[in-house]
């Protein structure tokens, strides 16, 4: 199988093959023809023990919307792994978003909405406070990542939130109805 894999600025096209060396062995071929062989065993439901040569690595992993979050030790590494079709779709989507100039601020953690600091249609500066979320006795102000206008408000004061819940969409004034 071929995948487009991205880690930070690094982007590579990889082929994963099963050369029949045993259940857990795979051969990964990079764009430039290099290959590495992995002995990758799932040792816990979300944890892989990987041996490359004689080196032992252990990765915990979690898949979230096409991104694979690998934890090495206590360091999280976010890797995007897409197949060709998904990579094309993603490209198209990013292009559209860039044109629209819309950003939706999401809850960085589960918590409670203490205050919504802006109103629909209001102009906001980059870095201006949009809402205050509370969890574990800590209040956190969410700031606008761009200059623009409040297009949508999802959050309500007093509301309990899941992590990554959408709160407020900021965009260009032209997008207002």
């Amino acid at each position: 199988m071929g995948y487009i894999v991205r880690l930070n600025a690094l982007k590579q096209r990889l082929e994963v093959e099963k050369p029949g060396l045993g259940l857990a062995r795979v051969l990964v071929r990079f764009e430039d023809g290099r290959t590495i062989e992995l002995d990758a065993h799932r040792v816990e439901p979300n944890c892989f023990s990987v041996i490359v040569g004689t080196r032992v690595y252990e990765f915990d992993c979690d898949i979230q919307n096409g991104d694979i979050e690998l934890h090495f030790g206590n360091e999280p590494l976010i890797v995007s792994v897409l197949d060709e079709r998904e990579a094309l779709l993603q490209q198209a989507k990013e292009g559209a978003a860039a044109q629209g100039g819309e950003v939706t601020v999401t809850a960085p953690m589960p918590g409670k909405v203490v205050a919504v600091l802006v109103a629909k249609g209001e102009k906001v500066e980059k870095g201006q406070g949009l809402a205050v979320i509370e969890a574990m006795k800590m209040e956190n102000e969410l700031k606008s990542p761009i200059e623009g206008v409040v297009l949508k408000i999802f959050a309500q004061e007093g509301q309990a939130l899941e992590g990554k819940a959408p709160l407020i969409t900021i965009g260009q004034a032209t997008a207002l109805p």
Partner: protein
Amino acid sequence: MNIKKVLIANRGEVAARIIRTLKEMGVASVAVFSEPDRHSLHVRMADEAVGLEGTTSRETYLDVEKILAAARKTKAQAIHPGYGFLAENPEFAERLEEEGIVFIGPKPEAIRKMGHKTTARQLMTEAGVPVIPGTLEPVRTLEEVQRLAEKTGYPLLIKAKAGGGGKGMRIAEGMNDLASAFRSAASEALQAFGDGDVYLEKLVSKPRHIEIQVIADTFGNTFHLLERECSMQRRHQKVIEETPSVVLDDTMRERMGEMAVRAAKAVGYEGAGTIECLVDENRNFYFLEMNTRLQVEHPITEAILGVDLVRMQVAIARGERLSLDQPNIKGKGHAIECRIYAEDPDNGFLPSPGLIRSFRVPGGPFVRLDSGVFEGAKVPIYYDPIIAKLIVWDETRPLAIKRMVRALGELKIRGIRSNVSFLLDVIQSKAFQTGDYDTRFLDTHWPELKEESEKELPPEDVILATAATVRFRQEQIQRGLGQRRAAGAQASFWRYTPWKALR
């Protein structure tokens, strides 16, 4: 009194900690729990448990009447308050006295005197205990603050009379920011403790936070159990504690210990308590406040002395006499504690509640994990983010540091974020290694520490190849599952684990 059943008016790791000792003493334990805490470890570990209707701390663990009802229902003869919540609430201790329930802690009067910061400062001054220059009375108006600030001198600290944990505390560097510092300290204090009174204190230069553990029985025998160095703090929250402190020699240790015993005696203290001190760069020490309860970091004292402080607390509450000999209380080796918080160090230390998908406890010699969670536990959004404490001991400080690095490496917490990688950065920093740090170190140096930190990561090729392999394997399994499902096979509910399919 022969206490046979104790209610723990707390939750999380400290409740579990107390239950463990009660079990060893043959004393029955009663847990109380808020609605989101039904699945929590302390409930599972206790002999009995009573639900407290409600969700927030105020509705549950802070509700004196609900806790009292639980104690009456289960006929608990004593209550251990742990730390936080009602642990330093003199009215609660008083209510227990009225109800004939033993409060495992000091008498209400001692809590009241030490809890009222300005009263405590006065009492300590009278007892000949050095305090930081500042006001002895609470200040309430901006004019008063401005007048007194001139006398104390800048930089100065505005601190809430009640409470602790960095809440209601602001620094004023000079006249210009005095007004705003006063206002925000007072309003934060009012919100957090229902009491907006603040007082002024001279800001100590390069301050180290060093505290002395004291223990006193009901016969007036009062001892100190050496010091704990707690200067590694982030926003006034302790992060790493160790004992002994690198800045204390035996003479100073003895002087501070004597001072602590004097301070405890000045309020007729009974039980386990802690005298928190500031030590300046010239090694002058000042009484800061007394915590009239078990301290989060008590295990490092246990580690170097080979004692169980909770067992001592219960014994004192039973009216037993302490048989200690102050000159023979000598620590052995070095102990370090790291506090494990559910927070994201890569994202401004935002709290990180949620489901703990994977939890691995470190093992091996002289490693202790006191945890309030387990694999599959849900960390609720309503309470403190502390989920565990990791304590190591070794023969020397450098060895203990290496052991802590190893143990932190073994500790695995997944599903939520934790501060483990942050702790690894801090403990491997030059400042920690040399012991040259004060309470402001982390707040000023953390960004550069983070920059410097060199985490050993696998080669990028391995990371990319593993990520692709994980996806590849997932697709293989899903294809397999799909085929089986299509063929009408039904996975057994009880036996099914996704990962079995792979083996």
